[in-house]
């Protein structure tokens, strides 16, 4: 599997309601030790209704500017959802065209307190 197999995929909740598309993969460096670093392990999917501007990172980090761009990108991504990998139906991992399904309803997902990327 490649990162690009997950990025850009549509995400549907348990009831088939569309949450958006995967804009990033939030990882923790606690995977198997490989060389000098622990491998980044996917902890959650960042899901937004739009892809535009997400790569700038303004939807995640409070510190970045310029403010006008930051405000516009945050407006686009105001419904950013952090979806823990543990609720992803992993049997669905396959071709890009197929949406990722979740085991829970959108309302049961934790609030996006993980919106801001450390570092």
């Amino acid at each position, binding site marked *: *599997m*490649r*990162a*690009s*197999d*997950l*990025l*850009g995929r549509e995400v549907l909740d348990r009831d088939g309601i569309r949450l958006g598309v995967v*804009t*990033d*993969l*939030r*990882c*923790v*460096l*606690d*995977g*198997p030790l*490989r*060389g*000098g*670093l*622990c*491998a*980044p*392990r*996917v*902890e959650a999917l*960042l899901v937004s209704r739009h892809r535009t501007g*997400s*790569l700038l*990172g303004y939807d*995640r980090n409070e510190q970045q500017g310029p403010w006008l761009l930051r405000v516009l990108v945050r407006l686009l991504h105001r419904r950013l959802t952090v979806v823990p*990998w543990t609720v992803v139906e*992993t049997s669905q991992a396959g071709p*890009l065209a197929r949406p990722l399904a979740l085991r829970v309803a959108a309302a049961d997902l934790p609030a996006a307190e993980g919106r801001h*990327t*450390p*570092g």
Partner: protein
Amino acid sequence: MTVAAGRVIDLHLHLLDRQVVDPDGRMVCKVDDLELELDERGRPYVTAILLGPRALGPRLGGRLGRWVAAIGERLAERDRPVSRIDFSLVTDIGSAIAVSRPRGRLDVIPLEDWVEEHVIARIPGSRHESE
């Protein structure tokens, strides 16, 4: 940003499209995609950096992606898999991705290495002053 164990990063923002540099600070490639494997609990983790047009093309998608991948396929040696740098060689994730092996020993860009050795190296003044 130097990354210690347990820190959190976003793959797209902090890894994809970043420059990879060798221990001498020489540019190796860009991170075109990342190879993931599932651990024993079914959670994906990064095993390698993928590079080259055959890694970038499928990520771009659409007609442009198919075009990029097709050119990469045409230029690649027969049956040669997509170039990869094992994640065990990564020593730092910052504004660039540092790897522990010199560029010449990574064998990831054979066409570029061939051109450097057979064409560029023969141009007077092409080598660094100290060499």
